């Protein structure tokens, strides 16, 4: 009888300690996960465009008809999200639904302008395939050169006064939202916000 109790007691201790180790590991994993999913925001790459500077002015025809004015005071006091993409870039395609939802939800203060360069026929096919008829669509090497866009997809947020508010490499919805969030909070990028709040 005593032996039975002794063994059951020792086994219980082992299992209790084991379970507590597991609970500790799980709790620690939650902490590690919190660290991992910290918002990082879109990465600003360009050295030529700086947040706070006036955006270069352009008046260009849109492939979807009409003309697009970039830079300077916007007529409807709307901000502009200039989104650089290419029909051959796979990440750009995954972001198209996000752009559509941003266009629908933020239409009061924001207009989304798509920009690319290359053969017009390819772009027309791209517009038809992905139903991008509602977006102003620029086909111009000048705009990309002016902003020195080296990597796609890249977003530039221009305020209604024609000032570059924030810009960065966009790889997912969170990056895109970080541009808008940085504007709302008055910072050039989410990284800068982190730097300011870190102390």
């Amino acid at each position, binding site marked *: 009888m005593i032996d039975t109790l002794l063994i059951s007691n020792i086994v219980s201790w082992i299992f209790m*300690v084991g379970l507590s180790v597991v609970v500790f590991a799980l709790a620690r994993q939650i902490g590690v996960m*919190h660290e991992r999913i910290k918002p990082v925001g879109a990465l600003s790459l360009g050295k030529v465009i700086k947040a706070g500077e006036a955006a270069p002015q352009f008046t260009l025809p849109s492939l979807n008809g009409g003309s697009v004015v970039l830079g300077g005071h916007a007529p409807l006091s709307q901000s502009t999200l200039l989104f650089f993409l290419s029909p051959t870039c796979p990440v750009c395609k995954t972001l198209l639904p996000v752009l559509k939802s941003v266009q629908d939800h933020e239409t009061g203060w924001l207009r989304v302008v798509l920009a690319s360069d290359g053969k017009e026929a390819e772009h027309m096919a791209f517009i038809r395939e992905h139903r991008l008829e509602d977006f102003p669509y620029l086909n111009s090497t000048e705009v990309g050169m002016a902003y020195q866009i080296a990597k796609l997809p890249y977003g530039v947020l221009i305020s209604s006064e024609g000032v570059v508010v924030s810009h960065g490499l966009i790889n997912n919805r969170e990056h895109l939202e970080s541009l808008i969030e940085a504007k709302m909070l008055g910072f050039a990028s989410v990284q800068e916000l982190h730097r300011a709040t870190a102390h």
Partner: protein
Amino acid sequence: MKSNAILLAILTDPVFVMAVSFSFAMLFLSAACHKFTDLPKFRSVLGGYDLIPEKLLSMAHLLIPALETAVAMALLTAGTRQVAALGAISLLLLYAFAMLLSIRNGRTLQDCGCSLGAVKQPVVVGLVVRNMGYAMLAVLLLVSPSARALEGMDLISVAGLVLMLSLFYAIANVLIANQHTSRELFHD
């Protein structure tokens, strides 16, 4: 009434008293080790609390880990256990009070300087509550344990209890730190 009597018997049993005092000894010893290994950092953390005058800071940052070591050593022997328990309670309440004051003054310290260094532990209300709980547990050590000869089986119980209490301490620290990071992350 009967269950109360059983509870009292457990709380004053030498096994329980030994396990709790050994756990506290480990806690204070590891805290002191952690501070002694990086004294300059502990000094800056202590300065961050802004409660000790600059002149006394160089003395205080040596005195605190020294006191912790003394309390830990005294907890290990039965003769000095009750005095050590008083010291442990005072230290725990002192830390809780210091953290409460720094929260009240709106100071957000990135690290309370109390953990084992593995986890960055910001000063939050949870830590104040944690320290109060520990102080209450240490009060049990002020009561003299009942006289009972310890057997081999009791040693297993003491070892198991010390292990479990240490693990619970570590888990509590991680959960409090997690609560803070989740609040930062989700803004709630």
